């Protein structure tokens, strides 16, 4: 006989388990509608992979796992996706949550399932992956994805694998019923888990109030090396940390995980689901749920499809709504009131409790804490509930954390023991939530601070960069001013001319006359080429009657003009080259020539006498007048616009005036 340890505290509430195990597990059958919430587990909700109106088969994936701590969802039966919408689910908040609604077609047609009865041929990660794909999350109540629990970090050795068959909470008998009827499946599942974890020992812990279950398990486990450990009934032995202490004597450290003391725990329901998933390839689409309480005529266990509305299941058990005071999901200690009777059964629904008012009366008003210490005696986590209560009332969150509030498993033993009927667990739940909220807020504040500071730094940096650039530009400008300081007093035009000359000189230096000739020749050749291709295109366009004919025609014309110009330039160059012996060599430089011409003209002008100058002016003006007259007449003939004619007439008048004044000047000059 194995040594069984104890744990601190615990209570002995009335068990009320016998009502629901009088008959075996019944099949709940097909409800008219199945509602599958996307989040039935701890972690990220699954992502929908089906569309409304789509037909799905039993066991088909309808929502995929998203992230590591997440599991997929499967269709519990064949049918049509009726809706993907927000529905009320079994959650104390009463909030709506996204759900997939399936209307069964009644055929209950399975998708192809590939089981691996000889799972030992697979390696461990592959089996864990199978478990993950089957959507298995802890079925004891918390709903932690089993695959995550089984993915033990490399390097940690697990001595003990524990299958939790304790089911310590009053009223619930789902695991008990499974032990009685499906002991062989539990043992097979335990063997799979043993293969994955490879522990030194595998234990199934069961309270001694389930003798039939223990007997069945012992019979099935014969020769398998799996030990069934029986221990005295006490609430809450089924808590993971409590069960580990009972069976191994080891305490999981505060805030730690069981794997830290070399233990992995799995629930009976999860073990059976793992067996189904690995050996038969069937995903988790149904579970065993206890329906009990004085407000149902036939309390019993049902094999029920996930997503079945509670109303349907309760009806199967002979629900008496008029007697029922409230509907509870889970047991009387840790369960919660569901917001509506139409909420669906989910993977963690181990019990639906429909008590009468007499059975579970409303609590009397809470009275003052008298510091009797009974709660401390009852606490299975060795906390100081009265102290925590005090701090929770005063919102002293720091002190609450110092007193290990987060080790509280919310079992309700303290509240049960309290002679003043103080709803202690509610205080702890609220405080926990508040602390978590504060942590989240602080995290967000921290992130905001980082972003704010990063932004501040960026703005500063941008400003500094701009300043630096401006300084650099200023420096360059100053240097330039300094460099050109020598030629400061000179005419800017002169400077520009100099620059142009320098440029020209540089170009001339780079290429000699030979290259100039080549350049011209090249221009001519390329123009010829372009002309041939353009003409070809034009011909083509004409043949096809294209709308681009006109554009192409102008293109060809232009190219032809260019070609002619190029040829002329080439001829001129060759001609001038032939006269290269002439002393006018610098004529090659056009700018130089223009400057020279302008200068010569100025000099010539300066050399003229005032009378000659005036005469020249007069001649020029007369020429302009003649030209303008000609234009005016032409415009009149062409019936140009009124405006143009008026403008021309005024020009003529002006010019006549100017000629008159020029004549006067000339007379004056001659007289002088």
């Amino acid at each position: 006989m194995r040594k069984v340890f104890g744990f601190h505290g615990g209570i002995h509430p009335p068990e009320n388990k016998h009502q629901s195990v009088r008959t075996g597990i019944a099949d709940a059958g097909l409800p008219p509608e199945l509602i599958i919430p996307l989040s039935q587990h701890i972690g990220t909700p699954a992502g929908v992979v089906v569309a409304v109106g789509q037909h799905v088969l039993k066991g088909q994936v309808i929502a995929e796992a998203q992230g590591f701590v997440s599991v997929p969802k499967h269709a519990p039966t064949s049918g049509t996706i009726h809706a993907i919408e927000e529905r009320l689910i079994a959650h104390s908040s009463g909030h709506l949550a996204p759900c997939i609604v399936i209307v069964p077609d009644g055929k209950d047609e399975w998708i192809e399932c590939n089981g691996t009865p000889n799972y030992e041929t697979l390696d461990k990660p592959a089996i864990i992956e199978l478990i993950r794909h089957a959507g298995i999350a802890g079925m004891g109540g918390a709903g932690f994805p089993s695959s995550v629990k089984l993915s033990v970090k490399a390097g940690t050795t697990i001595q003990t694998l524990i299958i939790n068959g304790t089911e310590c909470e009053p009223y619930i008998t789902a695991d008990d019923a499974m032990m009685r009827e499906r002991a062989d499946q539990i043992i097979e599942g335990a063997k799979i888990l043993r293969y994955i974890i490879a522990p030194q020992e595998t234990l199934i812990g069961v309270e001694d109030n389930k003798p039939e279950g223990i007997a069945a398990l012992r019979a099935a486990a014969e020769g398998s090396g799996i030990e069934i450990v029986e221990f005295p009934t006490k609430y809450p032995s089924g808590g993971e940390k409590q069960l580990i202490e009972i069976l191994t004597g080891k305490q999981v450290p505060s805030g730690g995980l069981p794997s830290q003391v070399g233990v992995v725990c799995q629930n009976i329901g999860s073990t059976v689901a793992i067996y189904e998933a690995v050996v038969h390839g069937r995903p988790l689409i149904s579970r065993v749920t206890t329906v009990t309480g004085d407000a149902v005529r036939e309390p019993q266990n049902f094999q029920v499809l996930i997503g079945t509305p509670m109303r349907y299941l309760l009806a199967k058990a002979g629900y008496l709504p008029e007697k029922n005071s409230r509907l509870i999901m889970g047991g009387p200690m840790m369960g919660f009131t569901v917001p509506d009777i139409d909420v669906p059964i989910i993977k963690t629904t181990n019990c639906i409790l429909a008590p009468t008012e007499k059975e579970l009366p409303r609590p009397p008003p809470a009275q003052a804490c008298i510091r009797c210490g009974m709660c401390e005696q009852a606490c299975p986590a060795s906390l100081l509930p009265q102290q925590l209560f005090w701090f929770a009332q005063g919102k002293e969150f720091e002190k609450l954390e110092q007193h290990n509030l987060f080790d509280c498993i919310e079992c309700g033993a303290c509240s049960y023991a309290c002679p003043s009927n103080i709803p202690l667990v509610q205080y702890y739940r609220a405080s926990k939530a508040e602390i978590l909220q504060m942590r989240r807020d602080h995290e967000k504040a921290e992130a905001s601070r980082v972003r704010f500071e990063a932004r501040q730094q960026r703005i500063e940096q941008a400003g500094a960069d701009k300043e630096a650039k401006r300084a650099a530009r200023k420096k360059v400008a100053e240097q330039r001013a300094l460099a050109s300081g020598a030629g400061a007093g000179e005419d800017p035009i002169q400077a520009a001319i100099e620059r142009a000359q320098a440029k020209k000189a540089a170009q001339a230096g780079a290429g000699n006359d030979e290259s100039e000739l080549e350049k011209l020749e090249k221009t001519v050749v390329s123009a010829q080429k372009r002309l041939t291709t353009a003409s070809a295109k034009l011909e083509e366009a004409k043949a096809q009657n294209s709308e681009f004919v006109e554009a192409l025609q102008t293109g060809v014309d232009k190219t032809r003009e260019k070609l002619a110009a190029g040829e002329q330039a080439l001829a001129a160059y060759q001609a001038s080259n032939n006269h290269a012996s002439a002393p006018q060599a610098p004529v090659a430089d056009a700018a130089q020539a223009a400057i020279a011409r302008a200068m010569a003209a100025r000099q010539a002008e300066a050399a003229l006498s005032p009378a000659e100058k005036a005469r020249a002016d007069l001649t020029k003006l007369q020429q302009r007048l003649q030209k303008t007259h000609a234009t005016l007449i032409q415009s009149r003939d062409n019936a140009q616009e009124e405006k143009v004619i008026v403008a021309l007439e005024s020009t003529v008048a002006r010019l006549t005036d100017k000629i008159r004044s020029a004549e006067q000047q000339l007379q004056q000059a001659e007289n002088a």
Partner: protein
Amino acid sequence: MIDYLLQYPLLAALTALVGLATAFGALLGYAAVRFKTEGNPIADEINNILPQTQCGQCGYPGCRPYAEAIANGEAINKCPPGGEAGIQALADLLDMEPTPLDSEHGDVKTVPSVAFIREAECIGCTKCIQACPVDAILGAAKQMHTVITSECTGCDLCVEPCPVDCIDMIPQQESMQTWHWDLPNPVSRSVDLIATDSVPGDVSQDRAA
């Protein structure tokens, strides 16, 4: 010299004291330089308490500047997002009397809100992007802007500069993830927790049966 000092104990005492004073003075002077604290540690601690909304309701351009101002003697009741809890925490830290929130700087918002840009109306002027103290708005010139909800502190600073008034401050809805139990009402009997529902031993039909 020693003989002379021994003859006049008063002088001896004086010499010893002056010597000690010089020695410790030098030591303290060295320590002040060697172990000089960078920045203002009090301002850092105050900044940790401030909610980092960066809303500027206190009259300072961000939480950090206000923290520095508090460290230099500014009043602690100018931060509406921090609320009474924030003032209490600051009072505890600075060992001051908590004062009620100065309503001149705005009222406490009970529900946190986030900015929401009605994207169809956004003209892409980038004014809100420039106003956002935590870079929580995404967009470019003449492109639609949008708010990164998870980074928004709900400071309202983007609402004012928007030329087409297309930014709303939406109070955050309580969701399944943010919902939590409230502290129980001491007088109410409608408590959801089942454990206290029965007087211990009252429901023992099971045992009796």
